[in-house]
């Protein structure tokens, strides 16, 4: 089937969205951004395709109206698939590490290090199954994060037992991980799914036989997710890895993405990690006006990052603590550089942490409202996207400020808003292909 791919190269993460011809989202993928942009794009696209594959599976099952524990089964399949992916990359990492054990540094210890490496990876492979067991909690879904933390733990133990230099093991890892990460994903998706399927035990309560399940999966796998057209977007990249006709500005993608999620939206506020955008869109999702704060950390997610550091808290803990306040402190300096000083000042004066935090949340929202004001104000409906949109204290302040200054306005917040840009890009891809013409000439 035809799919239209939108890729959004952000500074921290790269997102991809797959749309079908009916404007429905088939799949979403996300990965950490990395130095090789082309690889980041491929990985994100593939993740989206994997997600898309599951959508197809779901559709196949629903069509066939089987009375099987669908979600349970698909959950098993996904975990097994992820495990396959992880093991594949582990193999790659192991090969790469082993290959780097040469040269002056390793004179005399070559075989010892290689032996230790093999042991570390054996332990990692053993771990892996548990990592992807049902209910297992992972801090992150990105290979670099998972492999990294586990590698360090095992390497330390193995180095101690085998009496080999620990730092050499780390050295080899550090060099390899970048290489591995920047290699484009290999292997056929369908094959991976089949192997994954093989891992799933058939429960006794299942009515269907393995063969039938296999058939359904095979049929779904048989539907090729054709990448009919791709549009990329992203900010701050002097050169995106696409030819010109496949690029759209991230402001337009963001506006259109918000429109796709909420067709009645007219004003969009995006508070990202490093910039804030105020966008006005018309009824067709076309951007009419925009303003950006792309130079100053105040009013961006980074502001909260500084606060979290100052208060020695996790970023996700800020919101809940701020929510406890009903008397936000009036913070006058919105400059991030002084946020810490202001914080310390007030703490020393005996003000409560939650009040100060609530005030700081208000400060960041005030800055964002400035950008919105400059872009044309707030028109119903209002969509709020970006990481900060997940912060309840920030959302509370936003709602208050909008109500006070613009009256009753519907405020839309989508937990998947991180995909807004990629969604818009995918829609641009679909429009470009169908000749709807978004006006961009080749």
């Amino acid at each position, binding site marked *: 089937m035809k799919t239209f791919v939108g890729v959004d190269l952000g500074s921290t993460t790269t997102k991809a969205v797959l749309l079908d011809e009916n404007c429905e989202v088939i799949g979403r993928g996300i990965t950490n951004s990395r130095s090789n942009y082309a690889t980041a794009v491929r990985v994100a696209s593939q993740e989206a395709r994997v997600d898309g594959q599951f959508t197809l599976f779901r559709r196949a099952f629903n069509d066939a109206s089987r009375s099987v524990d669908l979600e349970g089964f698909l959950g098993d399949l996904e975990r097994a698939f992820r495990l396959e992916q992880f093991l594949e990359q582990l193999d790659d990492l192991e090969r790469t590490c082993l290959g780097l054990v040469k040269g002056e540094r390793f004179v005399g210890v070559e075989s010892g290090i290689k032996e230790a490496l093999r042991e570390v990876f054996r332990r990692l492979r053993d771990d892996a199954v548990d990592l992807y067991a049902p209910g297992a909690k992972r801090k992150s879904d990105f290979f670099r994060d998972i492999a990294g933390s586990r590698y360090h733990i095992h390497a330390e133990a193995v180095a101690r037992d085998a009496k080999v230099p620990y730092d050499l093991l780390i050295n080899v890892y550090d060099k390899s991980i970048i290489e591995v990460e920047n290699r484009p994903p290999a292997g056929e998706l369908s094959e991976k799914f089949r192997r994954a399927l093989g891992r799933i035990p058939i429960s006794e309560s299942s009515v269907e036989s393995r063969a039938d399940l296999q058939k359904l999966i095979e049929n779904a796998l048989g539907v090729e997710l054709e990448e009919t057209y791709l549009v990329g977007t992203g900010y701050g990249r002097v050169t995106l890895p696409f030819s010109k006709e496949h690029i759209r500005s991230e402001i337009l993608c963001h506006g259109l993405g918000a429109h796709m999620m909420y067709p009645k939206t007219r004003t969009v506020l995006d508070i990202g990690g490093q910039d804030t955008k105020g966008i006005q869109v018309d009824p067709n999702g*076309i951007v009419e006006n925009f303003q950006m704060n792309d130079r100053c950390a105040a009013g961006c997610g980074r502001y909260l990052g500084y606060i979290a550091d100052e208060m020695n808290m996790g970023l996700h803990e800020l919101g809940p603590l701020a929510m406890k306040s009903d008397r936000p402190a009036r913070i006058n300096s919105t400059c991030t550089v002084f946020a810490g000083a202001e914080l310390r000042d007030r703490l020393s004066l005996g003000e409560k942490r939650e009040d100060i935090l609530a005030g700081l949340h208000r400060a960041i929202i005030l800055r964002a409202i400035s950008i919105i004001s400059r872009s044309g104000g707030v028109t119903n409906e209002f969509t709020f996207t970006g990481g900060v949109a997940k912060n309840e204290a920030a959302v509370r302040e936003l709602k208050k400020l909008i109500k006070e200054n613009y009256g009753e306005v519907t405020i839309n917040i989508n937990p998947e808003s991180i995909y807004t840009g990629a969604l818009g890009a995918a829609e641009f891809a679909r429009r470009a292909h169908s000749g709807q013409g978004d006006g961009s000439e080749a």
Partner: protein
Amino acid sequence: MTIITTPKTAPPKEVEKDASMVKQKEMMAAHYDRLTSAPLTGEKVASTFVPGNLNELIMCFGLVNNLPEVNAIQNGLRRQSGAYVLEAEKIGHSEDVCTYVKSDIGMMAKGNIAPNGRQFPNPDVLLLSYTGCFTFMKWFELLREQYKCETIMLHTPYMGDGKVTRNMIEYMVKQLKEEVIPKLERISGVKFDIDRLREYLKKSAAAENDLVRVLQSAKNKPSPIDAYFGGIYYIGPIFGAFRGTDDAIEYYNFLRAEVEERLAAGKGPVTPDGDMGKERYRLVVEGPPNYTHFRQFWKMFYDEGAVIVASSYTKVGGVYDFGFRHDPDKPLETLAEYCLGVYTNRSLPMRIDMLANYVQDYDADGLLINSIKSCNSFSAGQLLIMREVEKRTGKPAAFVESDLVDPRYFSAANIKNRLESYFQMIEQKRAGARAAA
């Protein structure tokens, strides 16, 4: 699978220089030579400002006209201004103030070297043409403190009500008659000859006629000129030390002929990379350009087929495209009118009118504002200007931010991002209009 490509960089092209470009280069070089030779030749030097530049009057006294703004621009284009600004800030000047001033002061602190590598002379007089910008007053007070030279205040009242009044003209003429001219006489040792002034004014008017033809050629499609980046070169002689000279007349003669030739051939504007390709976007621009990254900034436009058809900055040293010409029949009044009419001396409603009319008259796709951090005269109110022009023309506007000559405030990625979004916005509007049709 969609092809993922890495864009190639094009090899630099060999660009032929037009006669007007050659002439301008010669004029500038000769002028800097004359300036830096003044201590040897005994010529006296007057410093003044571009808005309210009474070049014809200055020439009547045989004075050499030094324009610190132009020097700051030269420093910016040659990427020296960054160091000068830092130097001025080290000495104690605030980060918030005009970077032309800081570039000038920093340059002075670092040897006061002109673009030709020789030292600038100390001015014999500062003609403080207080026109269109508050900072000018402080700039020359600072220079006066440094050079301890005579300073002449010429106050150009602001057109707050959108018009010139008799009171304003009388005030200015009186200042010219009883302060400016007598003082210049004394300092230069040359007696004022009003007929000499008339001669210069006649020549100014001639050059102005050709300049306006050139500016208005942008009404054509495709426009044969870029009225902003290209425009910086076109306004050089008329705004600088050459208005009223035969050189300027010749320059504008050449320029007009070249432009008419391009027009006849259906060519677009000349750019540092040669002729621009297909004209895809026509823009009106408000605000000064950035000078430290001038080429890079320009390239973001012509690479996309975007040409600027009209700009407000090319009127900062005088507005000629609404009919005003220097008039030899009323020499002092005409100097006053000239000063009163410069762009930055016009009220905000007048500026909105001008820009909205440009968008309509030059059939532009919209208004782009380049907001300069350190210039309050231009920047304060631009957001309102933007919205008013959008309202009046129904066409989209966009806003980018940079600075005159402080390179720290030019972020290519930011600006490119906003520009590209703007171009795509225009495309979308066109597509929408096509679909509706």
